[in-house]
């Protein structure tokens, strides 16, 4: 087991015109499950590939297990990577696929076979060893890729969107399996995804990335409840956090915290919500409307759980409230978190 760390990492393309990674400092804990989350093109895959040694950084260092590996080829880094496409060798059988890293590492013949079979048993693909990848389903291919990654007993797992090729139903069960797999193996894992529910569900910590930078790193609940800036606030959460301008600051609150007045007790602020549209989504009511905290009305969304049965009518104005401790404040210009502001009720 080992930790992964990057220091002042930069990766530029096209002679510096594209900054895929723009000064990133990041470190995992021992055996940690760290998820890199961000929209496509934010640099998360480039970061993973740089750690794997498939891209050479423009500046900065990669450390694995406390050792600088920046100049080392991938094979010397003790990493295993699973690609989005699983990248199974199409001309080799499942067994030959799993054995391949061991042959490359010149492991003795008998031991190879034994370790490959053990890895296959662990992932429940022992009965598929003679098949070719094209004869496997998406889920089976993913397991073969994981077995191939596992068999070398790597110090670090790097997973690049390994669930995005599965259909929605399979994805949920594969996510669960992946989590249990990692807990059993206990190897430090870096996982790239653009899917926030995957990130929230899998990660011990999440690093939210945008435009080549890490915007925030923290436990899922922290990233959700205490976003560091407006990007994180609106990227995470569905529907995203409401941001209402008031003077120089943006007042942020999650849709589930904007509730009909009588449902909010304690210290709170009340706002008048002009209801424009309503949606029923798996028991919840999503209420779309406008509120006014500053100079002009702003569109917001309220999410009422099934337990709230206050009648709401489209086209009417209702009194809603937000608990004061649920309010977050951001600088309107920089988007960064600022000090709490007194918002008159």
């Amino acid at each position, binding site marked *: 087991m080992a930790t992964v760390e990057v220091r002042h990492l930069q990766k530029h393309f096209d002679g510096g015109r594209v900054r895929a990674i723009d000064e990133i400092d990041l470190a995992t804990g021992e055996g940690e499950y760290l998820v890199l989350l961000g929209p496509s093109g934010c640099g998360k895959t480039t970061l993973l590939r740089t750690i*794997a*040694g*498939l891209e050479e950084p423009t500046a900065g260092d990669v450390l694995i297990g406390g050792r600088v590996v920046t100049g080392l*080829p*991938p*094979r010397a880094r003790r*990493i*295993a*990577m699973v*690609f*989005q*496409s699983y*990248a*199974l*060798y*199409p*001309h080799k059988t499942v067994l030959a696929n799993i054995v*391949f*890293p061991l*042959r*490359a*590492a010149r492991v003795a013949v008998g031991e190879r076979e034994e370790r490959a079979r053990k890895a296959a048993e662990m992932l429940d693909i022992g009965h598929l060893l003679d098949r*070719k990848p*094209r004869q496997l389903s998406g889920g089976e291919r993913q397991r073969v890729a994981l077995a*191939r990654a596992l068999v*070398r007993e790597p110090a670090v797992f790097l997973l690049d969107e390994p669930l995005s090729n599965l259909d929605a139903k399979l994805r949920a069960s594969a996510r669960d399996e992946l989590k249990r797999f990692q807990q059993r193996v206990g190897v430090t894992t870096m996982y790239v995804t653009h899917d926030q529910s995957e990130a929230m569900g899998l990660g011990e910590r999440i690093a939210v990335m945008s435009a080549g930078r890490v915007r925030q790193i923290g436990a899922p609940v922290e990233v959700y409840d205490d976003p560091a800036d407006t990007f994180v606030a609106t990227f995470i959460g569905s529907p995203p956090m409401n941001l209402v301008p008031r003077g120089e600051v943006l007042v942020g609150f999650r849709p589930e915290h904007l509730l009909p007045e009588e449902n909010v007790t304690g210290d709170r602020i009340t706002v008048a919500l002009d209801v424009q549209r309503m949606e029923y989504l798996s028991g919840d009511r999503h209420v779309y409307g406008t509120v006014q905290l500053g100079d002009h009305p702003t569109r917001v969304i309220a999410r009422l759980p099934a337990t709230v049965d206050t009648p709401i009518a489209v086209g009417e104005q209702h009194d809603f409230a937000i608990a004061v401790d649920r309010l977050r404040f951001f600088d309107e210009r920089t988007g960064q978190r600022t000090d709490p502001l007194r918002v008159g009720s």
Partner: protein
Amino acid sequence: MAGPRAASAECTVPTEPATAHRRRLVDRDEALAWAFLVPSVAYVAALVGIPFFLAIAFSLSDVTGGDPSFDWVGLRNFNRIFADPVFWRSLRNTLVFTAVSMLLIVVCGKVLANVLIAQFRGRWLVRFLVLLPWTTPVALSTITWLWLLDSVFSPIDWVLRELGLIQSNTYWLGRPVLAMASVIAVHVWRLVPLAAVIMMAGLLSVPKDVQEQATVDGAGYWRRMFEITIPLTAPVIAISALFGAIFTFTDMAVVYVLTRGGPTNGTQVLASWAFFRGIEGGDIGQGAAIALFLFPLLLAAAIAILRAVRRTEVS
């Protein structure tokens, strides 16, 4: 225009088979397939099929340049060519030329293909230059080689002499072994670009992430080459080998221009021997019989390679 017609179509039951039929003809794939196929089928029949059967007919006749009347002679032409040591020599030479050229074409083509896919400045210029030998008419480029290998004025000899590697001229085309090597070299020079471009397409089709996966899995350059790249491009390599084999096997221009089959039939191949016998010697029956020997060998090679391709094909 469309308005009234649409209206009438609406109120009368569809009774316009002519327009309906015409519109559907364009959409009928079988009809279109035939329409597009017929010209090439006619072309192949006229320029391959008819000459092929004509050659069979000639090989069983005593037709000559001076006496074109067709007289059936059975297998006499075949008996005669089998009794001729030059025929066996040509057959052996043809097989040697093809096998050695094919091997060199595949190896050099693979190496060149790797160069062509590498990222460097001026890549398009290199690709263009590499393709030149293939685009030059074979007779013209062979004449250039004839000059390069000249017994007196050969620039290759001059360079070797200046480097102190040889004392006197080599007579490339005057000694049997060197003449064979020269013919093979010209074939390889001519066909490597084609093979390289075919294999380049194959190399580019190998998924990048499979290559990278092998890198991450710890495989070095040679392991990646022999365990990943070559197996995945095997069908394409086989196709370029087949092309190389067919072009070498059936070619007589290189031998004809470079050595005329000499010295003392040392570089004679089936195609050139058939030409010398049938056209220059006027014995069309024997020429046809010799030429027919190309057919079963080519057919066997083509079937063998195409079957190998299908077996290794990965979907």
